[in-house]
């Protein structure tokens, strides 16, 4: 190859590499970090390319008028590139219909794939739009009136611009991901229902990710079309989306460096490597084999190394790295299996002492509490009230006409035999489940129609019965994810950078430290929550809920799988919190826990409230005994 040809080849590689890296970065934050699987991703890049094309091209009668397309505004650089990003972002809005709904993951994927194929078909056949199957050609290169696009200098300049943009986008995404906002995205990826219950607006987050990824993809398309000066439907079939997903999976989903690596290895490296293989067989053989190899790579990686070459890093907080003696075991990832056996918490005897530490108190006393009028003995107020709650499943009532108050500062127990409707009632109070009829009053306000994340933001927080820790976040991150009103927990806050949100984060970490000490799990702070034992994960869930600074805490079987001694400790902690003013509702089976800690206790059976009182009183009531033993 001649010297010039070699240089042009390298430049072309670099430009393609930059463009692919950009596209993969867009997919990386969307899919790898936020868990939004967008199989129509290629449409965004295509849209950006077409947008940049028709914005920069002259009217369609120019150049002999052999092409037909919309716009043709002849805009100067950098407007077409900006337009590309904007169009890519806007296109995301209709996509939320398919991704936002509660549709099975694979069904949604099919829908998006089909949308991609359909878009390709429409563009191919509707010539007035983007010149149909022939596509756009003679797309002007940026600044081609001032410089010669064929010159080496220009080409190096183009190359430099692309790499600069890719670096810029990488930097911005890094800021987003390594912030409380990024943590929230990852929490949503791991368990969107729980994220919702901790105050995260999941729909809005998904939309933001679609728009952001779309804009980045659009920009990448705009850059590419300015370089190769043409763009046709044959260049963006659904196979191209598969290649991008393969790149992100192989490089490492959830790690932006991995996305770049994937972009270099797969679309760029792999497909370019064919140039250096001496041609053999029929002309189409090598491209076909490349596709086979990509298919094999995809399946191979998902089987052998689903985390990719550069996996998502575990975020280790320095403050919790232990001294050398234990560091070896910690590094080896060994979790102490025997830790379930009788751990003791500080203040084991009697009510737990409130461990004093830096940071604001765990409990949030809502100012509206003082506006509520006393309704009970001792002037107590009702903080949360269920009023004739009813819930049907397929016409069968699981809960029918349940009413009871939660008195401020009390630890109320909710018991009943299997199928009594306790968890369903709790879910309705938290907003996880909509009510069929009835209402819920919280701090004097009717919140029946309020979505779960808004309730959480107002201090009404719940835990879940089944394992719901954020598995791929560390224990510390699980706790931090629940802290409300974090300055870094928005896209704007994250982009403003560490200087903006580090103070809030420090404070949150201080609270989390206190919490971890309270429950004696400090040494697991940097472990993935998913690696802990069942009882420990339960504790993480309780701690996380407490980190949300609840006014009212709804606990769904918090003691399940927890050692009896530890359960008692938790009970003491909860009583202490109530004495400080928190209101707690606890669904549980272990009746001796009810005995010791809960007053009052509400008994449900067959979807209705049977009785309320202390356990001692309830044991003497024959209908309660009957409910448990007869029904």
């Amino acid at each position, binding site marked *: 190859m001649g010297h010039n040809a070699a240089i042009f080849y390298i430049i072309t590689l670099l430009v393609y590499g930059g463009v692919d890296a950009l596209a993969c970065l867009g997919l990386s934050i969307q899919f790898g970090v936020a868990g939004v699987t967008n199989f129509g991703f290629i449409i965004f890049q295509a849209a950006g390319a077409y947008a940049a094309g028709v914005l920069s091209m002259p009217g369609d009668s120019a150049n002999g008028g052999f092409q037909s397309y919309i716009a043709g505004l002849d805009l100067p650089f950098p407007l077409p590139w900006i337009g590309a990003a904007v169009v890519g972002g806007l296109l995301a809005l209709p996509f939320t219909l398919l991704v936002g709904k509660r549709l099975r993951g694979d069904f949604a994927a099919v829908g998006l794939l089909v949308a991609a194929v359909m878009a390709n078909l429409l563009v191919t056949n509707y010539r007035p739009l983007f010149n149909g199957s022939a596509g756009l050609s003679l797309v002007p290169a940026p600044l081609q009136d001032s410089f010669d696009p064929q010159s080496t200098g220009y080409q190096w300049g183009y190359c430099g611009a692309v790499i600069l943009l890719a670096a810029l986008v990488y930097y911005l995404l890094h800021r987003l991901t390594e912030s409380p906002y990024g943590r929230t995205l990852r929490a949503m990826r791991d368990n969107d229902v729980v994220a919702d219950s901790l105050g995260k607006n999941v729909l809005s987050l998904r939309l933001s990710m679609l728009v952001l990824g779309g804009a980045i993809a659009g920009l990448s398309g705009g850059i590419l079309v300015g370089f190769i000066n043409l763009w046709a439907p044959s260049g963006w079939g659904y196979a191209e989306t598969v290649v991008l997903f393969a790149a992100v999976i192989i490089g490492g989903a959830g790690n932006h460096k991995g996305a770049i690596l994937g972009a270099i290895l797969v679309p760029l490296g792999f497909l370019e490597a064919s140039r250096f293989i001496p041609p053999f067989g029929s002309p189409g053989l090598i491209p076909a084999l490349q596709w086979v190899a990509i298919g094999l790579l995809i399946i191979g990686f998902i089987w052998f190394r689903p985390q990719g070459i550069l996996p998502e890093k575990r975020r280790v907080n320095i403050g919790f790295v232990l001294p050398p003696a234990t560091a070896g075991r910690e590094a080896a990832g060994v979790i102490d299996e025997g830790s379930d056996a009788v751990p003791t918490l500080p203040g084991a005897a009697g009510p737990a002492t409130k461990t004093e530490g830096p940071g604001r108190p765990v409990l949030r006393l809502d100012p509206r509490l003082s506006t509520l009028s006393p309704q009970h003995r001792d002037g107590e107020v009702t903080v949360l009230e269920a009023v004739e709650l009813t819930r049907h499943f397929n016409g069968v009532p699981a809960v029918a006409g349940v009413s009871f108050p939660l008195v401020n500062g009390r630890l109320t127990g909710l018991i009943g035999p299997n199928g009594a409707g306790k968890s369903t009632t709790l879910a309705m109070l938290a907003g996880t489940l909509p009510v069929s009829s009835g209402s819920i009053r919280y701090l004097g306000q009717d919140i029946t129609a309020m979505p779960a994340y808004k309730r959480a933001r107002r201090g009404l927080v719940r835990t879940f019965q089944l394992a719901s820790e954020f598995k791929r976040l560390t224990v510390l991150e699980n706790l931090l994810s629940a802290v409300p009103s974090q300055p870094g927990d928005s896209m704007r806050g994250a982009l403003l950078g560490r200087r903006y949100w580090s103070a809030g984060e420090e404070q949150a970490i201080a609270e989390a430290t206190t919490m971890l000490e309270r429950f004696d799990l400090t040494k697991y702070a940097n472990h993935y929550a998913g690696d802990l034992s069942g009882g420990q994960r339960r504790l993480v869930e309780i701690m996380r809920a407490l980190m949300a600074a609840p006014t009212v805490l709804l606990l769904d079987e918090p003691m399940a799988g927890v050692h009896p001694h530890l359960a008692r400790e938790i009970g003491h902690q909860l009583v202490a919190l109530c004495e400080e003013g928190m209101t707690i509702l606890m669904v549980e089976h272990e009746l001796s826990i009810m005995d010791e800690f809960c007053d009052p206790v509400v008994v449900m059976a067959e979807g209705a409230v049977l009785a309320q009182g202390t356990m001692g009183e309830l044991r003497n009531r024959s209908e309660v005994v009957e409910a448990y033993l*007869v029904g």
Partner: protein
Amino acid sequence: MSADLSNKMSTGHKRAGATLCTVGLTAGYGGRPVVHGVSINVEPGRVVSIVGPNGSGKSTMLKSIVGVVKVLSGSVILDDVDITNQAPEDTARVGVGYVPQVDDVFGPLSVKENLEMGGYLLPSGEVPGRIDKVLTYFPRLATMLTRRAAQLSGGERKMLAMGRVLMLQPALYVLDEPTANLAPAIAMELLHEHVRQLAVDGASVLIVEQRAKAVLGISDHTYVLAGGRLRMQGSPTELASSPDFVDSFLGGGHGNAKFGSP
């Protein structure tokens, strides 16, 4: 299909039940035991019940007997044959009829088809006759043969679930909380008229129930499970008069019934 079983199925009248024995049964999910060293016996013509508070492992116990949950140690013996850890389709073939607590019918299929599915192991010529027999047990089902199972009410579903199992006339019935989510009157009807009848007709019946007092009324022998272990056992009269029995359900003061797993 064993010759024994096909013999039993073609005779069509009162059949001998099977003797079930579990010896030191320890079972659980993913290697972690939920049930610890439980030994029980069920004899033909008798109703044996297992009761206990929530989370005591009663359901897991039944599932490990029929092969849905792994037995980690100990054994399950049916008529002197070791059937420990046999797959559910195999325990069905040796005469164990299992009615799970949930997902107990084939929702999209009609009532008649559910019964036909229950008779899958029968020679096809015998199925209609057997359906007629089952309908004499549950006459209400005869009025809804073409209705989809998912559209039945709770009580009707349970009858269909039992009817499905009845098709094979198993030697051992294993019933997991059949009265869960049923109104008390229907629950009593199910227990006294239908479940008791199975034993009267000669089969062995092992039943897990939350409604302890109700099931005591039809049991010949009862085991109390708490925390995955056997706490006490006896005849209904013995247990009903024991103060420890009530305590093991409602917790509180008296000694032996401790909660939680070790």
